[in-house]
């Protein structure tokens, strides 16, 4: 036990790999055994994260805790250095919570179950690594590793247009991280280390003169945009979002849950962990632009969602819309760096990340539940299903309301904090974003209306396509998500307290 306690983070990080190795040696026809092994082993990191949470000292402790540092690549002075602060801790919790749920949601998968589960576990490792990394190269390593399992999950278990969508996802993200890679190399060459804290300090000390034969200010601006584009594609920020609806629509249900629930957060996390600390001046200078992009994401994301007839695409565009608020909060924090407003906006942005993780995963799962039964996602073919599937209907309305930002549920708290923090800095943009919120309401109600209300499509009421209500396994997936949505809506303090301490230390 001592070993586990003293290496808590690396155990959480690498346990999924160990689990994948166990799966590798299970006979591939024993589908049930594979599913349950995957589920149970994926619960281990979650339980350990709860231990981590309970041992984390949010008040007065060091910003980063549970640090571990080993030499990894001595030749270029990169160390395997991991640790968590309040921000990463909440993201680690989100990841280890959503992965078992996604695996449970995948019990319906019958094709190549072993490979599927193994890829999910590898994906979990990749995401956790990004949130824990304190070394820039390690950050990048895990950043890229996550791509591979996601590509194959979409490409192998996706729906009809999966080849196109998976390649687009891959090329978009790799193209985006090219600039990031180059900028990381530049930083590594300049400072001879990849330790994030050292680089941040050194980089901010460079205020004038020349770098690589060019003016330092120019180099910094270029590097700033290289970082921004890489993360903006992942978030995704308008106009870099076009891969997302395709990837989401084609991905298997659990893939979408993780994609929306955690992978998008990697981009926002990059902004918070790297862009703002590395480029406070540039971020403040370009905050207006970032806010503009955020508002465009909010408004166009909402419009885009409203225009869809495909249920899953509707939810996919809603991610663009909701992640816009995250970016708005980040932009406000960049502009007001070091003030209370910045702290409020940043708290809101991070809470919004967590909340969106819950509601988007929930919504995608609900889309999957109905798709599994009807084999269509066309909203025009649904309608009036509430009497047929009352439990599903209730759960869907609850989750939609959380996504909408109904007071009392989680979305309200975070969006309120973002708006509250952003208002004094970026009033015009914030106002425009608020109007965008109106359209959020519109598309969510459209979703509810087209599925649950209105005239019933008789096809689903009788015969071989008779719709059955959500089953116990599916309810088990939703219960933790709904419980968190409710508890964060009523009493967000347990999470915000942890986040806030990290935010005030960082900004």
């Amino acid at each position, binding site marked *: 036990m001592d070993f586990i306690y003293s290496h808590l983070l690396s155990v959480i990080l690498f346990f999924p790999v160990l689990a994948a190795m166990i799966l590798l040696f299970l006979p591939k026809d024993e589908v049930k055994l594979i599913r349950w092994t995957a589920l149970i082993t994926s619960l281990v990191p979650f339980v350990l994260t709860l231990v981590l949470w309970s041992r984390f000292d949010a008040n007065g402790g060091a910003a980063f805790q549970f640090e571990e540092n080993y*030499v*990894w*690549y*001595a*030749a*270029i002075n990169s160390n395997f250095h991991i640790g968590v602060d309040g921000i990463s801790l909440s993201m680690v919790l989100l990841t280890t919570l959503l992965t078992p749920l996604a695996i449970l949601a995948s019990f319906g998968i019958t094709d190549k179950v072993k490979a599927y589960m193994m890829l999910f576990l590898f994906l979990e490792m990749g995401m956790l690594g990004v949130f824990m990394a304190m070394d820039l*190269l390690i950050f*990048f*390593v*895990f950043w*890229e*590793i996550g*791509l*591979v399992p996601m*590509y194959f999950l979409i*490409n*192998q278990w996706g729906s009809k247009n999966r*080849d196109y969508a998976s*390649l687009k996802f*891959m*090329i978009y993200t*790799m*193209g985006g991280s*090219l600039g990031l*890679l*180059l900028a990381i*190399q*530049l930083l*590594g*060459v300049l400072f001879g280390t990849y330790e994030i804290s050292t680089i941040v300090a050194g980089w901010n000390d460079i205020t004038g003169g020349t770098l*690589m*034969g060019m003016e330092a200010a120019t180099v910094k601006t270029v590097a700033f945009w290289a970082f921004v584009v890489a993360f903006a594609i992942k978030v995704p920020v308008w106009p870099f979002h076009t891969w997302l609806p395709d990837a989401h629509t084609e991905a298997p249900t659990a893939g979408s849950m993780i994609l929306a629930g955690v992978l998008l957060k990697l981009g926002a996390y990059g902004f918070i962990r790297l862009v703002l600390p590395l480029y406070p001046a540039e971020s403040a200078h370009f905050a207006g632009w970032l806010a503009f992009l955020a508002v465009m994401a909010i408004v166009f994301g909402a419009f885009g969602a409203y225009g869809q007839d495909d249920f899953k695409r509707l939810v996919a565009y809603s991610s663009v819309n909701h992640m816009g608020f995250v970016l708005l909060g980040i932009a406000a924090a960049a502009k007001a760096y070091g003030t209370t407003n910045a702290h409020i906006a940043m708290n809101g942005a991070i809470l919004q990340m967590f909340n969106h993780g819950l509601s988007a995963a929930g919504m995608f799962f609900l889309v999957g539940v109905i798709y599994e039964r009807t084999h269509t996602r066309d909203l025009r073919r649904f309608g009036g299903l509430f009497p047929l599937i009352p439990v599903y209907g209730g759960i869907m309305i609850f989750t939609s309301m959380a996504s909408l930002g109904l007071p009392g549920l989680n979305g309200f708290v975070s969006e309120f904090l973002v708006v509250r923090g952003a208002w004094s800095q970026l009033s015009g943009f914030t106002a425009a974003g608020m109007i965008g919120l109106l359209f959020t309401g519109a598309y969510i109600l459209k979703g509810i209306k087209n599925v649950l209300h209105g005239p019933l499509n008789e096809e689903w009421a009788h015969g071989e396509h008779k719709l059955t209500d959500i089953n116990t396994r599916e309810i088990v997936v939703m219960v933790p998500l709904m419980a968190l949505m409710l508890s964060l809506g009523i009493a967000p303090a347990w999470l915000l307290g942890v986040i806030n301490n990290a935010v005030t230390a960082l900004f």
Partner: protein
Amino acid sequence: MTFPILSVIIFTPLVAALIILMMPAERKTEIRMAALLSAIFALALSFWVYLSYDQAAAGYQFVEKYNWLPQFGISLHLGVDGISTPLVLLTGVVMFTGVIISWGIDDRPREFFAFLFILASGVFGVFVALDLFMLFFFYEIAVFPMYLLIAIWGWVKTREYAAMKLTLYLFIGSVIALIGALAMYFNSGMGTFDMLMLETANFSARFQQIWFLPVFMGFAVLGGIFPFHNWSPDGHVAAPTAVSMFHAGVLMKLGAFAALRVGIMLLPLGAKFWSPLILALATVNVVYGAFIAMTQTDLKYMIGFSSVSHMGLVMLGFATLTRDGMTGASVQMFSHGAMTALFFAATGMVYDRAHTRQIPELGGMAKALPYVAVTFIIGGLVSMGMPGFSGFVAEFPIFMGVWQVKPWIAILSALSIVITAAYIMLAIRRTFFGEMPAEFEGHIGPISVMDKVALTLLSAMMITLGVFPGVMVPMVQTGIDNVLRILGGA
């Protein structure tokens, strides 16, 4: 006297080749067993060398020196440093995997294995030679059997053309380099071909500037440098599987390695003078090679051009003349060697069963050949420079080195990463996934245990190096530090 391990490594394949040639041609199983045993022996010895190389002591180790033609200052002087030790191991691995992949060759296996082993012997020789004459000697030994292997056992359609083209290119290259070597021999006035002594010859700056280019480019032809690369994809395609593995896996490394050993280490001032040109040519390799690879429909041509692109990274790293860049380039030689051997092995297994390498005609192979698919994907990830695999560990320092000399070249050549990702992913998808064409249904048999051993060994090496760079990089660095000392001291 200590055990002369390096000469045993060199002569094991040669002796094995002679023994095999003396066996009766129709006893194919015995021939194969003899080949396998000697390959295992050579692999074990090269692994032993790798493990017992003393990194703290650095420098040349396991040194042996025998007079050969003392009148002309030629000796059989052997030794390995941090750069060549991994390459010796690589050769051992490729030789071993090449033999077990070729287990099924039924057309004159006796001659095939004999020629393959002569080739291997030459390759080992180049990597461990510390005498300029011996280096050329082994170099030619390595090139000559290539002609026969391709012309006799190659792909019927292009084998004569490709074998001729390859041989002419390489001979011309090596003759030009040889002239440079002779110039060094006479200009130094030391009357020796010993490279360790020539390193101290203090050639004039002007001499070095004149002779660097012929020497470096002469060898770099074999490394596939632009614009002298186009023998290589033709050669890859025409060669039988094991020969392609040797060819791309280790033979191209001979070129890069000799260019470093003879070009950069003996003529450091010339290297400094010409490095911008080499950087520019290598950048073309990297980017143009990737683009051309993308347009290929033949799986083997695609891998061939991707080798051009990846070998460009090796040249790029060497041409930076920085510690990071050269370290990365040396690791890239190892990583690319394992990767491309794996690629050609996997492609060969698909071709043997489907009888086509046209990517559009293939599909769904993962169902029939899951093991091949998984290892091909691992190779693909290495090729893309995905973190966690050896390609990343190698390419990252190369780019860091390039940043230190020409930032815009780093930016330009990084484009190749995305292009590589695109064509590799497309090739994987079209070959291994999707619908299997009806004519293949039921005709794609499983691979043998031998094949699995080869694929597993190569994949395991790439993953180990990718996850734990410490198993190789510090060793390589001791060799690079020696190069830097020469570059700095000259």
